[in-house]
Protein backbone atom coordinates (compact mmCIF):
# COMPACT_ATOMS: atom_id res chain seq x y z
CA UNK A 1 0.00 0.00 0.00
CA UNK A 2 2.82 2.38 0.81
CA UNK A 3 4.43 1.85 -2.58
CA UNK A 4 1.82 3.74 -4.53
CA UNK A 5 4.28 5.43 -6.84
CA UNK A 6 1.81 7.31 -8.97
CA UNK A 7 1.37 10.95 -8.16
CA UNK A 8 4.32 11.03 -5.82
CA UNK A 9 6.48 14.00 -6.50
CA UNK A 10 10.19 13.73 -5.83
CA UNK A 11 11.36 17.24 -4.94
CA UNK A 12 14.69 18.24 -6.48
CA UNK A 13 16.05 21.19 -8.40
CA UNK A 14 17.02 19.84 -11.78
CA UNK A 15 16.85 20.51 -15.49
CA UNK A 16 13.98 18.05 -15.87
CA UNK A 17 12.05 19.43 -12.90
CA UNK A 18 12.13 22.89 -14.42
CA UNK A 19 10.85 21.86 -17.83
CA UNK A 20 7.46 23.15 -18.86
CA UNK A 21 4.89 20.50 -17.83
CA UNK A 22 3.19 20.80 -21.20
CA UNK A 23 6.43 19.82 -22.84
CA UNK A 24 6.89 16.92 -20.45
CA UNK A 25 3.38 15.68 -21.21
CA UNK A 26 3.96 15.89 -24.95
CA UNK A 27 7.39 14.32 -24.50
CA UNK A 28 5.82 11.44 -22.61
CA UNK A 29 3.29 10.92 -25.38
CA UNK A 30 6.12 10.99 -27.94
CA UNK A 31 8.17 8.61 -25.82
CA UNK A 32 5.30 6.14 -25.45
CA UNK A 33 4.68 6.35 -29.18
CA UNK A 34 8.36 5.67 -29.81
CA UNK A 35 8.30 2.65 -27.48
CA UNK A 36 5.35 1.20 -29.33
CA UNK A 37 6.82 2.00 -32.73
CA UNK A 38 10.13 0.36 -31.84
CA UNK A 39 10.01 -3.16 -33.24
CA UNK A 40 13.57 -4.16 -32.49
CA UNK A 41 16.09 -3.97 -29.69
CA UNK A 42 17.92 -1.02 -31.25
CA UNK A 43 14.78 1.07 -31.08
CA UNK A 44 14.23 0.08 -27.46
CA UNK A 45 17.89 0.71 -26.67
CA UNK A 46 17.55 4.22 -28.09
CA UNK A 47 14.49 4.81 -25.86
CA UNK A 48 16.30 3.35 -22.85
CA UNK A 49 19.30 5.56 -23.51
CA UNK A 50 17.15 8.68 -23.64
CA UNK A 51 15.25 7.61 -20.53
CA UNK A 52 18.53 6.95 -18.74
CA UNK A 53 19.77 10.43 -19.69
CA UNK A 54 16.51 11.95 -18.43
CA UNK A 55 16.79 10.07 -15.12
CA UNK A 56 20.39 11.21 -14.69
CA UNK A 57 19.46 14.81 -15.48
CA UNK A 58 16.50 14.69 -13.09
CA UNK A 59 18.57 13.58 -10.04
CA UNK A 60 15.81 11.15 -9.09
CA UNK A 61 17.55 8.09 -7.61
CA UNK A 62 17.56 5.18 -10.02
CA UNK A 63 16.14 2.83 -7.39
CA UNK A 64 13.08 5.01 -7.04
CA UNK A 65 12.36 4.77 -10.75
CA UNK A 66 12.83 1.01 -10.65
CA UNK A 67 10.40 0.79 -7.76
CA UNK A 68 7.68 2.03 -10.11
CA UNK A 69 8.15 -1.20 -12.07
CA UNK A 70 7.60 -3.22 -8.92
CA UNK A 71 4.00 -2.01 -8.92
CA UNK A 72 3.32 -3.91 -12.14
CA UNK A 73 5.70 -6.79 -11.44
CA UNK A 74 2.86 -9.31 -11.62
CA UNK A 75 1.84 -8.07 -15.05
CA UNK A 76 5.45 -8.19 -16.25
CA UNK A 77 6.00 -11.76 -15.06
CA UNK A 78 2.63 -12.88 -16.39
CA UNK A 79 3.39 -11.45 -19.84
CA UNK A 80 6.82 -13.04 -19.92
CA UNK A 81 5.55 -16.46 -18.87
CA UNK A 82 2.75 -16.43 -21.45
CA UNK A 83 5.19 -15.47 -24.19
CA UNK A 84 7.73 -18.12 -23.27
CA UNK A 85 5.12 -20.88 -22.97
CA UNK A 86 2.89 -20.25 -25.94
CA UNK A 87 5.11 -18.91 -28.72
CA UNK A 88 5.56 -21.49 -31.47
CA UNK A 89 7.79 -19.36 -33.76
CA UNK A 90 10.76 -21.03 -35.44
CA UNK A 91 13.08 -18.03 -35.74
CA UNK A 92 16.69 -18.86 -34.82
CA UNK A 93 18.75 -16.13 -33.14
CA UNK A 94 21.68 -18.07 -31.79
CA UNK A 95 23.12 -21.59 -32.12
CA UNK A 96 21.00 -24.56 -31.15
CA UNK A 97 17.47 -25.61 -32.07
CA UNK A 98 14.69 -23.10 -32.65
CA UNK A 99 12.34 -25.13 -30.45
CA UNK A 100 13.65 -26.38 -27.12
CA UNK A 101 10.58 -28.15 -25.84
CA UNK A 102 7.07 -28.74 -27.08
CA UNK A 103 4.01 -30.35 -25.54
CA UNK A 104 0.48 -29.92 -26.91
CA UNK A 105 -0.17 -26.16 -26.99
CA UNK A 106 2.93 -25.38 -24.94
CA UNK A 107 6.35 -24.69 -26.36
CA UNK A 108 9.61 -23.04 -25.38
CA UNK A 109 11.24 -21.48 -28.43
CA UNK A 110 14.05 -19.07 -29.11
CA UNK A 111 11.56 -16.63 -30.55
CA UNK A 112 9.39 -16.91 -27.43
CA UNK A 113 12.32 -16.10 -25.16
CA UNK A 114 13.46 -13.15 -27.25
CA UNK A 115 9.92 -11.81 -27.51
CA UNK A 116 9.40 -12.18 -23.76
CA UNK A 117 12.53 -10.17 -23.05
CA UNK A 118 11.42 -7.58 -25.57
CA UNK A 119 7.96 -7.19 -24.03
CA UNK A 120 9.31 -7.03 -20.48
CA UNK A 121 11.70 -4.27 -21.49
CA UNK A 122 8.92 -2.44 -23.27
CA UNK A 123 6.60 -2.59 -20.24
CA UNK A 124 9.39 -1.55 -17.88
CA UNK A 125 10.29 1.41 -20.08
CA UNK A 126 6.63 2.46 -20.28
CA UNK A 127 6.17 2.46 -16.54
CA UNK A 128 9.51 4.08 -15.85
CA UNK A 129 8.96 6.97 -18.23
CA UNK A 130 5.43 7.57 -16.93
CA UNK A 131 6.66 7.60 -13.36
CA UNK A 132 9.40 10.05 -14.33
CA UNK A 133 6.67 12.52 -15.27
CA UNK A 134 5.06 12.38 -11.84
CA UNK A 135 8.39 12.27 -10.01
CA UNK A 136 9.60 15.47 -11.65
CA UNK A 137 6.35 17.41 -12.00
CA UNK A 138 4.26 18.67 -9.12
CA UNK A 139 0.62 17.67 -9.46
CA UNK A 140 -0.33 21.33 -9.74
CA UNK A 141 2.09 21.88 -12.60
CA UNK A 142 0.84 18.68 -14.20
CA UNK A 143 -2.80 19.66 -14.06
CA UNK A 144 -1.91 23.18 -15.18
CA UNK A 145 -0.21 21.61 -18.14
CA UNK A 146 -3.20 19.40 -18.92
CA UNK A 147 -5.53 22.37 -18.52
CA UNK A 148 -3.41 24.40 -20.88
CA UNK A 149 -3.17 21.61 -23.47
CA UNK A 150 -6.93 21.06 -23.28
CA UNK A 151 -7.75 24.77 -23.68
CA UNK A 152 -9.30 24.19 -27.13
CA UNK A 153 -12.03 22.19 -25.36
CA UNK A 154 -13.15 25.38 -23.57
CA UNK A 155 -14.60 26.55 -26.87
CA UNK A 156 -16.90 23.53 -26.70
CA UNK A 157 -17.97 24.74 -23.22
CA UNK A 158 -16.27 21.85 -21.47
CA UNK A 159 -15.25 23.03 -17.96
CA UNK A 160 -11.54 22.34 -18.38
CA UNK A 161 -10.61 24.31 -15.26
CA UNK A 162 -12.90 22.23 -13.05
CA UNK A 163 -11.60 18.99 -14.56
CA UNK A 164 -8.01 20.05 -13.88
CA UNK A 165 -8.82 21.04 -10.29
CA UNK A 166 -10.60 17.75 -9.65
CA UNK A 167 -7.61 15.85 -10.96
CA UNK A 168 -5.25 17.89 -8.86
CA UNK A 169 -7.26 17.26 -5.72
CA UNK A 170 -7.57 13.57 -6.49
CA UNK A 171 -3.80 13.36 -6.70
CA UNK A 172 -3.30 15.16 -3.41
CA UNK A 173 -5.87 12.90 -1.75
CA UNK A 174 -4.15 9.65 -2.76
CA UNK A 175 -1.81 9.56 0.26
CA UNK A 176 -4.65 10.62 2.57
CA UNK A 177 -6.97 7.87 1.36
CA UNK A 178 -4.16 5.30 1.42
CA UNK A 179 -3.56 6.11 5.07
CA UNK A 180 -7.27 5.94 5.78
CA UNK A 181 -7.58 2.53 4.10
CA UNK A 182 -4.73 1.23 6.20
CA UNK A 183 -6.39 2.52 9.38
CA UNK A 184 -9.69 0.89 8.50
CA UNK A 185 -7.97 -2.39 7.62
CA UNK A 186 -6.11 -2.37 10.91
CA UNK A 187 -9.32 -1.66 12.78
CA UNK A 188 -11.01 -4.61 11.05
CA UNK A 189 -8.01 -6.85 11.63
CA UNK A 190 -8.04 -5.94 15.32
CA UNK A 191 -11.57 -7.30 15.41
CA UNK A 192 -10.58 -10.54 13.75
CA UNK A 193 -11.11 -9.80 10.06
CA UNK A 194 -8.96 -11.89 7.73
CA UNK A 195 -7.89 -10.45 4.37
CA UNK A 196 -5.04 -12.79 3.57
CA UNK A 197 -6.37 -16.35 3.57
CA UNK A 198 -9.31 -18.19 2.10
CA UNK A 199 -10.67 -18.49 -1.42
CA UNK A 200 -10.71 -15.56 -3.82
CA UNK A 201 -14.46 -15.25 -3.28
CA UNK A 202 -13.91 -15.12 0.47
CA UNK A 203 -11.25 -12.45 0.12
CA UNK A 204 -13.37 -10.28 -2.16
CA UNK A 205 -16.16 -10.48 0.41
CA UNK A 206 -13.72 -9.37 3.09
CA UNK A 207 -13.12 -6.13 1.20
CA UNK A 208 -16.71 -4.92 1.60
CA UNK A 209 -16.26 -3.89 5.27
CA UNK A 210 -13.28 -1.80 4.15
CA UNK A 211 -14.98 -0.15 1.21
CA UNK A 212 -18.11 0.98 3.03
CA UNK A 213 -16.41 2.95 5.82
CA UNK A 214 -13.98 4.33 3.26
CA UNK A 215 -16.85 5.54 1.12
CA UNK A 216 -18.66 7.11 4.06
CA UNK A 217 -15.58 8.90 5.31
CA UNK A 218 -14.78 10.11 1.80
CA UNK A 219 -18.19 11.71 1.50
CA UNK A 220 -17.70 13.49 4.85
CA UNK A 221 -14.28 14.53 3.69
CA UNK A 222 -15.63 15.93 0.46
CA UNK A 223 -18.14 18.05 2.35
CA UNK A 224 -15.49 19.50 4.65
CA UNK A 225 -13.18 20.11 1.72
CA UNK A 226 -15.98 21.94 -0.07
CA UNK A 227 -16.54 24.11 3.00
CA UNK A 228 -12.83 24.87 3.27
CA UNK A 229 -12.68 25.80 -0.41
CA UNK A 230 -15.74 28.03 -0.15
CA UNK A 231 -14.23 29.71 2.90
CA UNK A 232 -11.13 30.45 0.88
CA UNK A 233 -13.26 32.34 -1.67
CA UNK A 234 -13.37 29.64 -4.35
CA UNK A 235 -15.96 30.33 -7.06
CA UNK A 236 -14.84 28.38 -10.08
CA UNK A 237 -12.59 30.25 -12.46
CA UNK A 238 -14.44 33.56 -12.08
CA UNK A 239 -11.73 36.25 -11.80
CA UNK A 240 -9.19 33.62 -10.83
CA UNK A 241 -5.48 34.18 -11.35
CA UNK A 242 -2.64 31.68 -11.38
CA UNK A 243 0.43 31.88 -9.20
CA UNK A 244 2.45 29.62 -11.45
CA UNK A 245 2.39 30.72 -15.05
CA UNK A 246 3.67 28.25 -17.57
CA UNK A 247 6.52 29.57 -19.68
CA UNK A 248 8.25 27.89 -22.57
CA UNK A 249 12.00 28.51 -22.15
CA UNK A 250 15.31 27.41 -23.65
CA UNK A 251 15.30 24.23 -21.59
CA UNK A 252 12.00 23.32 -23.15
CA UNK A 253 13.41 23.85 -26.61
CA UNK A 254 16.21 21.38 -25.87
CA UNK A 255 13.68 18.93 -24.49
CA UNK A 256 11.52 19.36 -27.55
CA UNK A 257 14.42 18.71 -29.94
CA UNK A 258 15.44 15.66 -27.92
CA UNK A 259 11.93 14.21 -28.07
CA UNK A 260 11.62 14.87 -31.79
CA UNK A 261 15.02 13.26 -32.41
CA UNK A 262 14.02 10.18 -30.46
CA UNK A 263 10.79 9.59 -32.35
CA UNK A 264 12.50 10.19 -35.70
CA UNK A 265 15.31 7.82 -34.74
CA UNK A 266 12.96 5.04 -33.74
CA UNK A 267 10.91 5.43 -36.92
CA UNK A 268 14.11 5.29 -38.98
CA UNK A 269 15.18 2.14 -37.15
CA UNK A 270 11.83 0.62 -37.99
CA UNK A 271 12.01 1.49 -41.65
CA UNK A 272 15.67 0.53 -42.05
CA UNK A 273 16.22 -2.39 -39.70
CA UNK A 274 19.84 -2.98 -38.71
CA UNK A 275 21.66 -5.96 -37.29
CA UNK A 276 20.83 -9.60 -36.73
CA UNK A 277 17.95 -8.96 -34.31
CA UNK A 278 16.28 -6.44 -36.55
CA UNK A 279 13.81 -8.71 -38.26
CA UNK A 280 12.34 -10.77 -35.47
CA UNK A 281 8.96 -9.03 -35.39
Amino acid at each position, binding site marked *: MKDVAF*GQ*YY*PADSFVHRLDPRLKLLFLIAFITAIFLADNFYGLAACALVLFAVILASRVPFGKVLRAVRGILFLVIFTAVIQVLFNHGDEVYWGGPAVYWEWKIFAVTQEGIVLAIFLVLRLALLVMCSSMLTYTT*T*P*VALTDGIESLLTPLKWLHIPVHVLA*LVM*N*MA*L*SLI*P*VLTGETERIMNAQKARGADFETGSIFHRIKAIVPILIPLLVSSID*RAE*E*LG*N*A*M*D*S*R*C*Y*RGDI*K*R*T*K*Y*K*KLRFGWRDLIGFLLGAALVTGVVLLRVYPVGFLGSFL
Partner: protein
Amino acid sequence: MRAIEFRDVSFSYGEEGEAEPQIGGFRLNHLNFAVEEGEFVAVLGHNGSGKSTLARLSNRLLEADSGEIEVFGTLLTKKTVYEIRKQIGIVFQNPDNQTVASIVEDDVAFGAENIGLPREEIGERIAFALKAVGMEAYRNATISRLSGGQKQRIAIAGVLALKPRIMILDESTAMLDPRGRREIIDVVERLNREEKITVILITHFMEEALRADRAIVMNRGEIVMQDTPAGIFARHEELLTYNLTLPRIGMIVKGLNAGGIPVSDTLDIEKLAGEIAECVS
Protein backbone atom coordinates in the same frame (compact mmCIF):
# COMPACT_ATOMS: atom_id res chain seq x y z
CA MET B 1 -14.84 48.73 15.98
CA ARG B 2 -17.12 45.71 15.93
CA ALA B 3 -15.48 42.88 14.07
CA ILE B 4 -18.49 40.61 13.97
CA GLU B 5 -21.95 40.80 15.43
CA PHE B 6 -24.76 38.22 15.59
CA ARG B 7 -28.18 39.79 16.09
CA ASP B 8 -30.99 37.48 17.07
CA VAL B 9 -29.69 34.70 14.83
CA SER B 10 -31.65 31.45 14.74
CA PHE B 11 -30.85 28.35 12.81
CA SER B 12 -32.00 24.76 12.77
CA TYR B 13 -30.99 21.55 11.08
CA GLY B 14 -33.61 19.02 10.21
CA GLU B 15 -37.23 19.50 9.20
CA GLU B 16 -38.58 23.00 9.13
CA GLY B 17 -41.36 23.99 11.49
CA GLU B 18 -40.70 21.29 14.03
CA ALA B 19 -41.10 22.37 17.60
CA GLU B 20 -38.36 20.09 18.90
CA PRO B 21 -35.38 18.99 16.88
CA GLN B 22 -35.30 15.30 16.01
CA ILE B 23 -32.37 13.02 16.65
CA GLY B 24 -29.51 14.47 14.66
CA GLY B 25 -31.47 17.68 14.34
CA PHE B 26 -30.28 20.77 16.04
CA ARG B 27 -31.22 24.35 16.74
CA LEU B 28 -29.59 27.70 17.53
CA ASN B 29 -31.91 29.97 19.46
CA HIS B 30 -31.90 33.74 19.04
CA LEU B 31 -28.18 34.14 19.37
CA ASN B 32 -26.82 37.58 20.26
CA PHE B 33 -23.16 38.34 20.64
CA ALA B 34 -20.42 40.57 19.32
CA VAL B 35 -16.66 40.41 19.06
CA GLU B 36 -14.56 43.58 19.00
CA GLU B 37 -11.70 44.11 16.58
CA GLY B 38 -8.43 42.69 17.93
CA GLU B 39 -10.15 40.57 20.55
CA PHE B 40 -9.23 36.93 21.26
CA VAL B 41 -12.42 35.08 22.13
CA ALA B 42 -12.71 31.42 23.03
CA VAL B 43 -15.99 29.61 22.39
CA LEU B 44 -16.40 26.56 24.61
CA GLY B 45 -19.02 23.90 24.50
CA HIS B 46 -19.73 20.21 24.55
CA ASN B 47 -20.40 18.24 21.34
CA GLY B 48 -23.60 19.44 19.72
CA SER B 49 -23.65 22.73 21.62
CA GLY B 50 -23.76 24.65 18.36
CA LYS B 51 -20.30 26.14 18.49
CA SER B 52 -19.25 24.86 15.06
CA THR B 53 -22.52 26.02 13.52
CA LEU B 54 -21.53 29.48 14.70
CA ALA B 55 -18.45 29.41 12.48
CA ARG B 56 -20.35 28.12 9.46
CA LEU B 57 -23.02 30.80 9.83
CA SER B 58 -20.46 33.60 10.00
CA ASN B 59 -19.43 33.29 6.35
CA ARG B 60 -22.66 31.84 5.03
CA LEU B 61 -21.56 28.25 4.57
CA LEU B 62 -24.85 27.82 6.37
CA GLU B 63 -27.66 30.30 6.00
CA ALA B 64 -29.40 31.57 9.13
CA ASP B 65 -33.18 31.07 9.30
CA SER B 66 -33.63 34.50 10.86
CA GLY B 67 -31.62 37.33 12.33
CA GLU B 68 -28.70 39.37 11.04
CA ILE B 69 -24.94 38.92 10.96
CA GLU B 70 -22.71 41.93 10.45
CA VAL B 71 -18.98 41.83 9.71
CA PHE B 72 -17.06 45.10 10.05
CA GLY B 73 -20.27 47.02 9.49
CA THR B 74 -21.31 45.06 6.39
CA LEU B 75 -24.47 43.00 6.58
CA LEU B 76 -23.91 39.39 5.48
CA THR B 77 -26.14 38.75 2.46
CA LYS B 78 -25.98 36.75 -0.73
CA LYS B 79 -24.40 39.78 -2.41
CA THR B 80 -21.75 40.56 0.17
CA VAL B 81 -20.76 36.98 0.94
CA TYR B 82 -17.58 36.96 -1.18
CA GLU B 83 -16.38 40.25 0.27
CA ILE B 84 -17.00 38.92 3.76
CA ARG B 85 -15.26 35.62 3.05
CA LYS B 86 -12.12 37.64 2.33
CA GLN B 87 -12.36 39.14 5.81
CA ILE B 88 -13.09 35.95 7.72
CA GLY B 89 -10.67 33.07 7.52
CA ILE B 90 -11.88 29.75 8.90
CA VAL B 91 -9.54 26.92 9.82
CA PHE B 92 -11.35 23.61 10.16
CA GLN B 93 -10.81 20.50 12.23
CA ASN B 94 -9.10 18.00 9.96
CA PRO B 95 -5.98 19.33 8.23
CA ASP B 96 -6.25 16.59 5.59
CA ASN B 97 -9.63 17.91 4.50
CA GLN B 98 -8.46 21.45 3.84
CA THR B 99 -5.60 20.97 1.43
CA VAL B 100 -6.34 21.31 -2.25
CA ALA B 101 -2.78 20.79 -3.51
CA SER B 102 0.09 18.46 -2.64
CA ILE B 103 2.84 21.07 -2.38
CA VAL B 104 2.85 23.66 0.40
CA GLU B 105 3.17 26.81 -1.68
CA ASP B 106 0.53 25.67 -4.19
CA ASP B 107 -1.92 25.09 -1.38
CA VAL B 108 -1.22 28.41 0.33
CA ALA B 109 -1.64 30.16 -3.03
CA PHE B 110 -5.15 28.73 -3.57
CA GLY B 111 -7.13 31.43 -1.74
CA ALA B 112 -5.04 34.27 -3.13
CA GLU B 113 -5.56 32.88 -6.65
CA ASN B 114 -9.29 32.69 -6.07
CA ILE B 115 -9.59 36.41 -5.37
CA GLY B 116 -7.67 37.21 -8.53
CA LEU B 117 -4.50 38.76 -7.15
CA PRO B 118 -1.57 39.41 -9.49
CA ARG B 119 1.24 36.83 -9.49
CA GLU B 120 3.84 38.92 -7.66
CA GLU B 121 1.46 39.69 -4.84
CA ILE B 122 0.50 36.03 -4.45
CA GLY B 123 4.20 35.23 -4.09
CA GLU B 124 4.60 37.89 -1.41
CA ARG B 125 1.53 36.69 0.44
CA ILE B 126 2.77 33.09 0.44
CA ALA B 127 6.06 34.29 1.94
CA PHE B 128 4.22 36.39 4.53
CA ALA B 129 1.77 33.62 5.47
CA LEU B 130 4.42 30.91 5.78
CA LYS B 131 6.61 33.18 7.88
CA ALA B 132 3.69 34.00 10.15
CA VAL B 133 3.17 30.31 10.94
CA GLY B 134 6.91 29.56 11.08
CA MET B 135 6.91 27.25 8.05
CA GLU B 136 8.95 29.32 5.60
CA ALA B 137 11.48 26.48 5.26
CA TYR B 138 8.76 24.15 3.96
CA ARG B 139 7.62 26.21 0.98
CA ASN B 140 8.32 23.41 -1.53
CA ALA B 141 7.61 20.48 0.77
CA THR B 142 5.04 17.75 0.11
CA ILE B 143 2.12 18.29 2.49
CA SER B 144 1.36 14.59 3.02
CA ARG B 145 4.80 14.12 4.61
CA LEU B 146 4.27 16.80 7.28
CA SER B 147 3.12 16.20 10.85
CA GLY B 148 -0.46 16.99 11.89
CA GLY B 149 0.57 20.23 13.59
CA GLN B 150 2.57 21.30 10.56
CA LYS B 151 -0.29 20.49 8.21
CA GLN B 152 -2.63 22.56 10.32
CA ARG B 153 -0.16 25.45 10.30
CA ILE B 154 -0.19 25.23 6.49
CA ALA B 155 -3.99 25.39 6.63
CA ILE B 156 -3.68 28.55 8.73
CA ALA B 157 -1.19 29.96 6.22
CA GLY B 158 -3.66 29.20 3.42
CA VAL B 159 -6.23 31.31 5.23
CA LEU B 160 -3.71 34.05 6.07
CA ALA B 161 -2.82 34.45 2.40
CA LEU B 162 -6.24 36.11 2.03
CA LYS B 163 -5.19 38.63 4.71
CA PRO B 164 -8.36 38.17 6.76
CA ARG B 165 -9.14 40.53 9.65
CA ILE B 166 -10.94 37.79 11.57
CA MET B 167 -9.76 34.25 12.00
CA ILE B 168 -12.07 31.51 13.25
CA LEU B 169 -10.54 28.24 14.38
CA ASP B 170 -13.26 25.63 14.34
CA GLU B 171 -11.88 22.90 16.63
CA SER B 172 -8.66 23.20 14.67
CA THR B 173 -6.67 21.50 17.42
CA ALA B 174 -9.06 18.61 18.07
CA MET B 175 -7.23 16.06 15.90
CA LEU B 176 -3.70 17.02 16.94
CA ASP B 177 -1.38 15.63 19.58
CA PRO B 178 -0.49 17.88 22.54
CA ARG B 179 2.57 19.22 20.79
CA GLY B 180 0.65 20.06 17.61
CA ARG B 181 -2.02 21.76 19.73
CA ARG B 182 0.56 23.94 21.42
CA GLU B 183 2.07 24.89 18.05
CA ILE B 184 -1.29 26.05 16.75
CA ILE B 185 -2.26 28.01 19.86
CA ASP B 186 1.15 29.73 19.91
CA VAL B 187 0.77 30.74 16.26
CA VAL B 188 -2.76 31.99 16.82
CA GLU B 189 -1.82 33.99 19.88
CA ARG B 190 1.03 35.62 18.00
CA LEU B 191 -1.20 36.48 15.04
CA ASN B 192 -3.64 38.10 17.43
CA ARG B 193 -0.93 40.09 19.19
CA GLU B 194 1.33 41.03 16.30
CA GLU B 195 -0.92 41.10 13.25
CA LYS B 196 -3.91 42.36 15.25
CA ILE B 197 -6.13 39.68 13.77
CA THR B 198 -9.37 39.14 15.66
CA VAL B 199 -9.45 35.52 16.79
CA ILE B 200 -12.44 33.33 17.59
CA LEU B 201 -11.16 30.04 18.92
CA ILE B 202 -13.77 27.29 19.04
CA THR B 203 -12.59 24.42 21.20
CA HIS B 204 -13.45 21.87 23.82
CA PHE B 205 -9.99 21.95 25.38
CA MET B 206 -10.34 24.16 28.42
CA GLU B 207 -6.57 24.84 28.53
CA GLU B 208 -6.74 26.69 25.24
CA ALA B 209 -9.32 29.12 26.55
CA LEU B 210 -6.93 30.32 29.26
CA ARG B 211 -5.09 32.57 26.85
CA ALA B 212 -8.21 34.27 25.49
CA ASP B 213 -9.42 37.75 26.48
CA ARG B 214 -12.94 36.46 26.84
CA ALA B 215 -14.69 33.12 26.82
CA ILE B 216 -18.19 32.21 25.69
CA VAL B 217 -19.79 28.95 26.81
CA MET B 218 -22.47 27.41 24.61
CA ASN B 219 -24.94 24.71 25.49
CA ARG B 220 -27.76 23.33 23.36
CA GLY B 221 -27.62 26.19 20.89
CA GLU B 222 -27.57 28.98 23.43
CA ILE B 223 -24.92 31.17 24.98
CA VAL B 224 -25.02 30.31 28.67
CA MET B 225 -21.90 32.02 30.04
CA GLN B 226 -19.81 34.97 28.92
CA ASP B 227 -16.86 36.22 30.97
CA THR B 228 -13.07 36.31 31.23
CA PRO B 229 -11.59 32.79 31.29
CA ALA B 230 -10.80 33.24 35.00
CA GLY B 231 -14.38 34.30 35.66
CA ILE B 232 -15.75 31.29 33.78
CA PHE B 233 -13.52 28.75 35.47
CA ALA B 234 -14.36 30.15 38.89
CA ARG B 235 -17.87 28.82 38.34
CA HIS B 236 -16.89 25.15 38.01
CA GLU B 237 -20.12 23.71 39.40
CA GLU B 238 -22.04 25.49 36.67
CA LEU B 239 -19.55 24.33 33.99
CA LEU B 240 -20.14 20.73 35.03
CA THR B 241 -23.84 21.04 34.22
CA TYR B 242 -22.83 21.86 30.62
CA ASN B 243 -20.61 18.77 30.51
CA LEU B 244 -17.47 20.87 30.66
CA THR B 245 -14.58 20.44 33.06
CA LEU B 246 -11.87 22.72 34.40
CA PRO B 247 -8.48 23.11 32.77
CA ARG B 248 -5.84 20.94 34.39
CA ILE B 249 -4.52 23.74 36.56
CA GLY B 250 -8.03 24.36 37.89
CA MET B 251 -8.34 20.66 38.75
CA ILE B 252 -5.04 20.77 40.63
CA VAL B 253 -6.13 23.81 42.65
CA LYS B 254 -9.43 22.15 43.46
CA GLY B 255 -7.69 18.92 44.45
CA LEU B 256 -5.20 20.71 46.66
CA ASN B 257 -7.94 22.66 48.42
CA ALA B 258 -9.98 19.51 48.94
CA GLY B 259 -6.91 17.84 50.41
CA GLY B 260 -6.52 20.63 52.95
CA ILE B 261 -3.69 22.53 51.28
CA PRO B 262 -4.80 26.14 51.04
CA VAL B 263 -3.87 27.70 47.69
CA SER B 264 -5.67 30.59 46.04
CA ASP B 265 -8.01 29.96 43.12
CA THR B 266 -5.58 30.91 40.36
CA LEU B 267 -5.08 29.94 36.72
CA ASP B 268 -1.51 31.22 36.72
CA ILE B 269 0.96 28.31 36.80
CA GLU B 270 3.86 30.40 38.16
CA LYS B 271 1.72 31.75 40.97
CA LEU B 272 0.42 28.31 41.87
CA ALA B 273 3.94 26.87 41.84
CA GLY B 274 5.06 29.65 44.20
CA GLU B 275 2.20 28.99 46.61
CA ILE B 276 2.82 25.24 46.62
CA ALA B 277 6.52 25.88 47.28
CA GLU B 278 5.55 28.07 50.26
CA CYS B 279 3.26 25.37 51.67
CA VAL B 280 5.94 22.74 51.36
CA SER B 281 8.57 24.82 53.11
